[in-house]
């Protein structure tokens, strides 16, 4: 625990130092990133200890705030979230050290101070064991990330994103506030240890509050609207942290709530699975329709949160039906995906940042051919793309595989319900997988392959070494987490008993069998890599002495091929977006060429969010209308406002004395 606290102190101190020298960009970046790396590496040590030993560490002290106590604890569940939080943040900080230098004219102390504060907030959220402390940490996290999102506040788009983010976060927090008030009212204290065992109707209410409150952070459809705005607006290393780990605090909240509420009724499980399925499929569909690289990645976060939630739902169903198999594989798959998503989504956002940094645009249809100009970034992005599409032999496949394995092994017996679970999970995961593959083949292919579609892409330059180093670390992790998955899965042996209220021995047994199965997978993966290597050597030998010529791409004999004739991202996705138009509601603006010598014509598509258009816009309009009726209260005179305050105080006083 002392390492953790020391790490927190370093983060705080480094942030302040960076703030003090903020006007000078290089020292500010240096202090900021160095303290973030050092603090994270120090603070993550206890998590590894807890995961290996299985003994949780805690620290408690009084706090003068009513109902509050400074009670923190690192148990195995917290540790599983702390490791990606600190790990990714450290890597992203190395990246940010040079990435932010592009904004020399700004005060760089501010983003670094709030970056460190964001880390402290996330870590505290995960370790807090008191409701009030939790809410304070939650607010620190939300507000510091808000400041980071609005880093480029001169751009109106960014300001709008910041506003949406702030409102969404506080709607979520409002639900959490109610959640903790109800919970504390039942138990008489806000310490988590005293919060168990409530009646079923209260538990149902609490569960729904948690789903909405934490779901807003995590980005469940349709609570995700802030995500596609906020993530692209933030600097790329911050997007990586926000998308990779910050939204996972929502998932952490839901898992923690599950441990507090006791035995789940069936509908909780089905609700979670349904949320997962809809977030997953709709998330990837909207990603497919995007034209901006970072916005595309943001929608993929919704998709991956969906996959994680499917895992949690399956695990919860296992608890409900007393099936260790389902519970172990569901939760392991879901939580493993938390880790994996942190790695590959972090990698992809850093890659997108390098593209943005090197070329100056994130518009897919203006990029192209970057592989020749940014070979390293391209390679790392490719690794991330394969991992996020859930393809073997990388880590993304493993966690999805575990969830599949759970529902497939559970399918025989159990009647219609187990068939329906298998149907929903296998059907949605395979569809999500296929769509994600299409989407990332598009993203990688359009951005890095072919010919440059604009001068910006033509003059792109490779990222510098700190940025490449960060991406290399994450790309290596994608492979290593896949290859060492049998060992990684066993790490969960201390985590699962925190969530699943069964005996330890069946949980242990299921985990070991899953680990044994994964060993076969690893063997197959290594075989695949060996085969590919062998064929590459074979091809080299075959072509070694023969003529290898260069020519133009086959163009059907057309004499003047042009980079603008290439297939674009929009046209690549068009068959799929048309097929799913019922969800996407893509708006097309077409002006067709006319006349004998057609001049200008244009085609433009826009897939704005359905929930935004059909749910939030009407609701907010309605609320706005309602509130405008109260406008007579606003006179703009100071005296009258003071009168209001006096009136309220008097009313309260009289009411209290009555």
């Amino acid at each position, binding site marked *: 625990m002392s390492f953790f606290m020391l790490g927190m102190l370093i983060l705080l101190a480094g942030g302040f130092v960076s703030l003090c020298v903020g006007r000078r960009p290089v020292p500010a970046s240096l202090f900021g990133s160095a303290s973030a790396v050092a603090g994270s590496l120090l603070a993550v040590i206890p998590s590894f200890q807890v995961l290996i030993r299985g003994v949780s560490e805690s620290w408690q002290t009084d706090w003068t705030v009513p109902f509050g106590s400074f009670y923190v604890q690192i148990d195995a569940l917290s540790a599983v979230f702390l490791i990606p939080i600190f790990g990714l943040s450290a890597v992203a900080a190395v990246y940010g050290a040079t990435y932010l230098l592009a904004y020399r004219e700004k005060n760089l102390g501010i983003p670094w101070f709030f970056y460190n504060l964001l880390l402290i907030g996330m870590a505290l959220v995960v370790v807090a064991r008191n409701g009030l402390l939790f809410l304070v940490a939650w607010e620190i996290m939300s507000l510091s990330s808000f400041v980071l999102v609005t880093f480029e506040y001169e751009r109106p788009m960014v300001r709008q994103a910041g506003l949406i983010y702030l409102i969404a976060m506080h709607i979520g927090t409002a639900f959490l506030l109610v959640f903790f008030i109800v919970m504390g009212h039942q138990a008489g204290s806000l310490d988590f240890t005293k919060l168990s065992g409530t009646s079923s109707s209260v538990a149902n209410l609490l569960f729904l509050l948690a789903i909405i409150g934490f779901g807003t952070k995590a980005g469940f459809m349709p609570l995700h609207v802030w995500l596609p705005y906020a993530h692209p607006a933030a600097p790329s290393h911050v997007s990586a942290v926000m998308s990779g780990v910050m939204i996972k605090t929502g998932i952490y909240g839901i898992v923690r709530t599950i441990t507090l509420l006791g035995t789940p009724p069936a509908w909780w499980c089905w609700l979670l699975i349904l949320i997962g399925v809809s977030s997953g499929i709709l998330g990837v569909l909207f990603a497919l329709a995007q034209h901006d690289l970072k916005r595309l990645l943001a929608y993929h976060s919704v998709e991956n949160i969906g996959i994680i939630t499917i895992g949690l739902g399956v695990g919860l169903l296992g608890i409900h039906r007393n099936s260790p198999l389902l519970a172990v594989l569901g939760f392991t798959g879901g939580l493993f995906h938390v880790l994996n998503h942190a790695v590959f989504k972090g990698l992809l956002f850093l890659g997108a940042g390098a593209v943005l940094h090197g070329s100056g645009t994130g518009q897919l249809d203006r990029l192209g051919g970057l592989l020749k100009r940014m070979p390293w970034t391209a390679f790392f992005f490719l690794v991330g793309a*394969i991992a996020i599409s859930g393809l*073997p032999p990388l880590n993304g496949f493993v966690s999805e595989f575990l969830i599949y394995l759970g529902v497939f092994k559970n399918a025989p017996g159990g009647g219609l319900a187990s068939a329906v679970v298998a149907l929903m999970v296998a*059907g949605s995961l395979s569809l999500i997988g296929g769509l994600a593959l299409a989407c990332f*083949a598009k993203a990688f*292919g359009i951005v890095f392959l072919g010919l440059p579609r604009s001068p910006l892409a033509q003059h792109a330059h490779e990222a510098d070494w700190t940025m490449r180093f960060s991406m290399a670390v994450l790309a290596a992790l994608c492979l290593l987490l896949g290859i060492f998955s049998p060992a990684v899965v066993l790490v969960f042996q201390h985590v699962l008993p925190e969530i699943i209220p069964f005996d330890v021995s069946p949980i242990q047994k299921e985990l070991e069998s899953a680990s044994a199965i994964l060993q076969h997978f690893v063997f197959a993966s290594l075989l695949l890599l060996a085969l590919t290597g062998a064929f590459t050597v074979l091809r080299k030998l075959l072509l070694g002495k*023969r003529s290898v010529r260069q020519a133009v791409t086959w163009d059907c004999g057309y004499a003047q091929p042009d980079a603008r004739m290439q297939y674009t991202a929009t046209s690549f996705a*068009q068959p799929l977006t048309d097929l799913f138009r019922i969800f996407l509601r893509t708006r097309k603006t077409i002006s067709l060429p006319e006349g004998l010598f057609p001049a200008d014509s244009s085609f433009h598509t826009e897939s704005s969010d359905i929930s935004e258009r059909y749910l939030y816009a009407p609701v907010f309009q309605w609320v706005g209308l309602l509130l405008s009726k109260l406008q007579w209260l606003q006179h703009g005179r100071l005296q009258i406002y003071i009168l209001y305050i006096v009136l309220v105080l008097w009313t309260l006083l009289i009411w209290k004395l009555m």
Partner: protein
Amino acid sequence: MTALKLLHPLIALAAAPLLPGVINRTKALFAGRTGQPVLQLYYDLWKLLRKGAVYSRSTTWIFRLGPMIGISVALLALTILPFGGLPAAIRFEGDLILFAYLFGLARFFTIVMALDTGSSFEGMGAAREATFSTLCEPALLIGLAAITKYTGSVSLSQMFSSLRFSDWGQAGPAFILVGSALLIVFLTENSRMPIDDPNTHLELTMIHEVMILDHSGPDLALILYAAALKLWLLGTLLIGIVVPVHSGHPALDVLIAVLCMALLAVLVGIIESSMARIRLLHVPALLIGATTLSVLALVLTAR
């Protein structure tokens, strides 16, 4: 025992290029032509392997890596799939999921490879491939889930060895449904007739052929070989589920399985001779239909 495990990959490596030959011969028969020799693909492969290569200037190492991944995936899938009573070299619970996802890896590289050329034709083919294969995935996995639910085994090897002809009496309708769904998946994934026309000569109408327009020499040989192996792999999956032969004699089992593969090739030839390609816009409806068949099968086995 180890030698026995490697027998299926060896048989497949030797015999897979026969399948396109048989299909073409059947089509020729229907059209009243003599047709190309059954061994044509072997000649083609041999010729291509001895040639040099021409690469487009816009391509990168992705373009050269793609064919290697494709053939490696096909080889690895061969070691997972049992064939006519022969055991699979690699088998574990959940290998059917790996089997399905391996094709995903190959597809990713095929698409990316096509986009690497920067040609609009190949981009078009890539977009179609992405769309149709995406819709195939649920049909395949839900169909396999139905068989899993019925047999209780999560491994292809166990599944194949536990199926009997008597299961047709018990759950015949479910088997017909899964069989039809897998047949559609088989035709789509291998770019065969009602979905894609392998003999078309216009770039605008192709799906798979257009994506490999720029490949030449040994690269093209590996792609063609991998395509033949894919035909073999998905055919074996279909046959293993629909025709569960267990005669008790290993050699006889293998013989029957090879015969079934030949019959499947003839069936594909008949389908290609008797059907026109459906409009690309209507292909998704067919694939959604296949998924529906799989779903029905899964629900039916639930009783």
